[in-house]
């Protein structure tokens, strides 16, 4: 990997052009438009007179409600990421190390299945499980463990459960690649030198999988803070996250400028994270980042 790195772009660099064109037309242009709308009083396309204004951003900062919403969004994102990591890592490890091809295929199917179900139905399935008349409550009540249904939905916990379920596959698939590339003989060497399997894991495998952990966590966090369908259905409309607020502003308040401002805030948060992630990765290892 450390062959002499040429410093001038070569012919292959041209291959970036189609994607660059796509991004320019379908990403930067619309997002730029959004950013512009967030500082205008109206939509210049349809309104004759618009002026520059910072009122949308001022409104956000002025009212603690919006800061709370931002914090709720981030909090749910963090918890989801941590839980997804805790759940995803053992599964990824198993998947990376399993020898039988059938076994791997089965695990792959099991991991991909939640992704394949479709977000609307998946969330709906969780509603079926967690609502007051849902599977969990009905089962527990019929077994006599509880007399009143547990409030599993309509809480942040319910949202986290639903989000974790959706994003664990992403975490697993990111980690399994990295863990798979860690040479098992390193672990074996550690054990030959007297370390217990647990210690070998903690001191050899785990540190080597940190780039994967960071990559997976970043992906899951970014997806979790921009989730819409799951938080709204599992939170019973009583937990307000930034995407839900954005949607409400667009669909019920017709306040595109404010929605755009909120969206820009969400984008900035995410971009800061990418920067932090790159820094952390640079600190952690001399490896090139494995995006």
């Amino acid at each position, binding site marked *: 990997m450390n062959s002499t790195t040429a410093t001038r772009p070569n012919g292959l660099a041209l291959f970036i052009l189609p994607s660059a064109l796509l991004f320019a037309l379908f*990403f930067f242009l619309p997002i730029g438009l959004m950013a512009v709308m967030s500082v205008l009083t109206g939509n210049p396309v349809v309104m004759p007179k618009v002026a520059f204004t910072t009122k949308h951003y001022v409104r956000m900062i002025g009212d603690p409600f919006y800061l709370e919403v931002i914090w709720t969004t981030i909090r749910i994102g963090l918890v989801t990421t941590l839980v997804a990591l805790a759940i995803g890592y053992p599964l990824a490890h198993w998947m990376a*190390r399993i020898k039988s091809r059938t076994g791997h295929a089965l695990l*792959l199917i099991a991991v991909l299945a939640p992704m394949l179900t479709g977000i609307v139905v998946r969330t709906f399935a969780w509603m079926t499980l967690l609502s007051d008349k849902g599977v969990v409550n009905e089962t527990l009540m019929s077994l006599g463990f509880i007399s009143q249904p547990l409030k599993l939905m309509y809480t942040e916990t319910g949202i986290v459960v639903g989000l974790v379920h959706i994003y664990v596959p992403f975490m697993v698939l990111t980690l399994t690649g990295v863990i798979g590339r860690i040479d098992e003989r390193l672990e074996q060497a550690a054990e030959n030198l007297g370390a217990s399997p647990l210690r070998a894991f903690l001191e050899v495998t785990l540190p080597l999988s940190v780039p994967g952990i960071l990559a997976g966590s970043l992906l899951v966090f970014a997806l979790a803070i921009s989730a819409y369908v799951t938080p709204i259905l599992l939170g019973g409309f009583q937990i307000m996250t930034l995407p839900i607020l954005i949607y409400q502003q667009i669909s019920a308040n017709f306040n595109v400028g404010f929605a755009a401002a909120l969206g820009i805030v969400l984008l900035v948060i995410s971009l800061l994270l990418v920067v932090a992630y790159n820094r952390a990765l640079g600190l952690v290892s001399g490896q090139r980042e494995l995006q």
Partner: protein
Amino acid sequence: MQTTASPSLPATRQTASVRAPGPARPYGRYLYLAINIAILVFLLAPIAIVVVFALNPTPFIQFPPVGVSLRWFEKFFASRDFMHALGFSLEVAVLTTLSATALGASAALALARGNLPGARLIVATMLSPLMLPAILTGLALFQTYVLLDVGRPTWGLVAGHTLVTLPYVVRTTLAVLHNFDLRLEEAAQNLGASPVRTFFEVTLPLIKPGVLAGAIFAFIVSFDQFPVSLFLVSPGNETLPVTLFNYLKFDLDGTIGAASVVSIVLAFVVVIGLDRTVGLRSYVKL
């Protein structure tokens, strides 16, 4: 013998190991398996619920189920809206997969080998559609299309989907390229192949599974994509998630379960088919 600093061997072959995965001592091993089984149950339970619900004849959430009935499947297949949406979703997903794979793989090549200045920044930018709430991306695209007076055409929807699936293709392809043993290319060139020939006969075939894995993600994500589609579909041309979501507003019955079961089966056919033919094992990773 290793010339690279990285402690891993080329990813083209898994190292054979004597022991089965997990710790050696029995209790540790059972715990490891138990944890993993529990996780699998967590992942699959809602799917099982969906199947149960698809077969339960009552038209709302109810547990325990009262029976087995295919009425929701009948309703799903008889519904012109759902069938059209299913077909349209497939069409959009295929088109998206093609364009995302082409654009993403070529971008990854350029980024890994093209010596582009600011490659890291470009990679971060290419991944940023994942960071922005898709609902805003959808609205922004809709607004732009209105501005350019193109209406809500199918290619506009495909473009939106390509945007949000491209990051996955870039990731998987980059991952494969990063672990690519350049010595294979060097060997080919030592044997007399030109750089172009090396590229087509050594590099491309070796990264193909990674690219295909990205294609699978693109397909799945596009098929399931909701927020972008919400603004970009036009009447008569709706994707399945949008139709399901609208249906949920008025009818909370097993039809969505049936739709879901059909989607899962369909997607499995695709994934298993590809696994058999190409052997995705090592490459379905992000």
